[in-house]
């Protein structure tokens, strides 16, 4: 079993079973320094279980995973001080203030006194909470609590950080600010292993893995995955009645009048995936006109990761089981 020497994380045949249910089913992947590695999948597909195994919180039933060159059965102390973790469930102390939470984390990770002050300021700035350090965490709005937990996981200058849905519930502006920051950190050589449901964020990842029911179904850079999984092209349009348009085109899809692979609503826009879009474009437009829906501006665009994600999820016998 070859462990790539310079990879920060190497998983080989990693498996975790709970009774008769296999949460993670023989997955292999590598994560390299200075890389944002995305781990995407529907709820309950084994994302959090995988992260817990990499942190030594759960012992794999089969296979191995190495973090920072150490086989993870029980992460030794010195390795843990080089690892940051933000769990899906809010795990700071609600009854403590922002500052107290950060001070505790800084000290617990063994930072020296002069470093602590500097890193706390850094974390406050990163979370945008300067001036509100003395507010109790439970009084912060959902998005702010998320940003505090985020900055807290970076406070001890970790070499590798595991982020489990870091920006869930965070408003678009702060999400973007956060990813800009992740990029500057990665530039300094930090490795980031992140799970997210925001597919636009997934585009920022250097490499990705799609996991479905415990198995990796796609692995590589966003471009590779799009090229490999996406056969058709994406037609984007802004119909007068988007909801009805989706219904109409789905009926067309099921009745196989046109080789439509996927119809999905994107806010007020509709994405249709089909092969040779140039040829089928007009036919799709006519279908809508017949149902007196004006297709509006139509343009053929490169598939976004969200299109790819949804297509591959549907492909693997539907959603959520």
């Amino acid at each position, binding site marked *: 079993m070859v462990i790539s020497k310079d990879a920060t994380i190497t998983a080989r045949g990693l498996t975790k079973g709970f009774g008769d249910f296999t949460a993670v089913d023989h997955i292999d992947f590598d994560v390299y320094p200075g890389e944002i590695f995305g781990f995407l999948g529907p709820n309950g597909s084994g994302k959090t279980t995988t992260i817990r195994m990499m942190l030594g919180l759960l012992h794999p039933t089969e296979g191995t995973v190495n973090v920072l060159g150490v086989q993870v059965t029980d992460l030794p102390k010195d390795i*843990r001080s080089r*690892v940051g973790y933000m769990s899906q469930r809010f*795990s700071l*102390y*609600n009854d403590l203030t922002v500052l*107290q939470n950060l001070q505790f*984390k800084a*000290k*617990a*990770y063994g930072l020296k006194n002069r470093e602590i002050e500097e890193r706390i300021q850094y974390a406050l700035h990163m979370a945008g909470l300067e001036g509100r350090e003395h507010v109790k965490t439970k009084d912060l709005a959902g998005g702010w609590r998320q940003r505090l937990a985020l900055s807290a996981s970076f406070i001890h200058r970790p070499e590798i950080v595991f982020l489990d849905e870091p920006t869930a519930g965070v408003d678009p502006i702060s999400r973007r600010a956060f990813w800009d920051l992740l990029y500057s950190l990665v530039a300094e050589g930090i490795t980031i292993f992140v799970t997210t449901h925001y597919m636009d964020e997934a585009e920022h990842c250097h490499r990705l893995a799609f996991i479905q029911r415990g198995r990796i179904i796609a692995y590589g850079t966003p471009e590779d995955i799009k090229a490999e999984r996406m056969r058709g092209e994406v037609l984007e349009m802004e119909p007068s009645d988007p909801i009805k348009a989706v219904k109409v085109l789905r009926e067309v899809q099921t009745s196989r009048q046109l080789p439509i692979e996927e119809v999905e609503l994107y806010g007020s826009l509709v994405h249709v995936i089909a092969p040779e879009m140039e040829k089928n474009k007009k036919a799709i437009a006519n279908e809508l006109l017949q149902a007196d829906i004006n297709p509006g501006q139509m343009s053929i665009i490169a598939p976004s990761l969200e299109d790819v994600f949804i297509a591959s999820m549907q492909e693997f016998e539907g959603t959520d089981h």
Partner: protein
Amino acid sequence: MFSRIWSISIKEFLHLRYDWWLPAFMLFGGVIELLLIGWATSRPITNLPLMILDHDQSASSREIVIALENTGTFQLKSQVYDFQTIEAALERGQINAALIIPPNFGNEMASANGQPTLSVILNGAESIPATTALRTVEGIARDIGEQITIKRIGMKPETLARFNPSLRVWFNESLSEALYSIPAELGLMMEFIILLFAALTFSREKELGTLESLLVMPLTSLEIIIGKSIPVIIIGMLAFGSMLGMVHFVFDVPVRGSLGLLIILAFVYILVELGKGLVISVVSRTQHQAFLLVMLVGMIDFLFTGYAAPVDGMPQILQILANFIPAHHWLEILRGILLKGAGFDVLWINVFVLLILGVVIGTFSLRYVRRSLN
């Protein structure tokens, strides 16, 4: 290493500051509670309601009534004329005892070899006051009996007195209930406080989901355990100190032995109870379970402190079991030092057993806590 441990302790203190009800209750509440209970229960049993049916109405029968009144044990109910009143009062639990003086009691007392009889009916529904009432009436009967003997056989009173063995009580001269029951109540309070705080350490974090991020930190479980234990130890010592001070000044429970030794042994005892509390907090999944276990363990230990009944009176198996209960040995030490002024030379067995129990519980709890934390 130490700074990391201390950071956890500070966090635990902060939690206490925000949930200030908890430390406030446990420390101040604890001391006040002990004061209240000590004040209520560690006093001689007095003014038990008593009814007297005096058929004789003679000088000697009145003499007995006055004697009973002077003991202070009884609070005489109004004059009673028939047995039915007594019967009804007993049924309603309004009286603890009733004395019936037969009609010719006076003459029997006077005649040379008369056989004066008295009959006492006790309310067995409350055995403790009933036994006390019985003892008091027996005392009065014996005193009056002695006067008769003196008259009848012309024996000088002082020689008769010399037929009763003279009694001396060591370590608790006035046989005050306070010196006996308060140490046990103090021990109980202390144990509950420590067990509660120790049980809280991990069960709360487990339930609120913050334990996971703690385990990921570069802390060995030993560091986490010590970090979380320091506040509990401090609170335990504070509780012990304040309660000891209170009982000493309010109930003047003496400290006849060496205070320093007592404090050191209190520290050892706290560590032992802390070990038990840690195991409870890790075994239980929710705080609800942890607290029910605290109550259970606390009550079991309390039975072996000899408060409700002396351990020697218990069935054999329980007496053997008592040796495995730290609280039992702690009470022996506490009473030994406070009341007997016992030193290490006397108490070394208890200390030795306490240390062994401490080591056993300590290693078990450490290993168990560490195993279940990872």
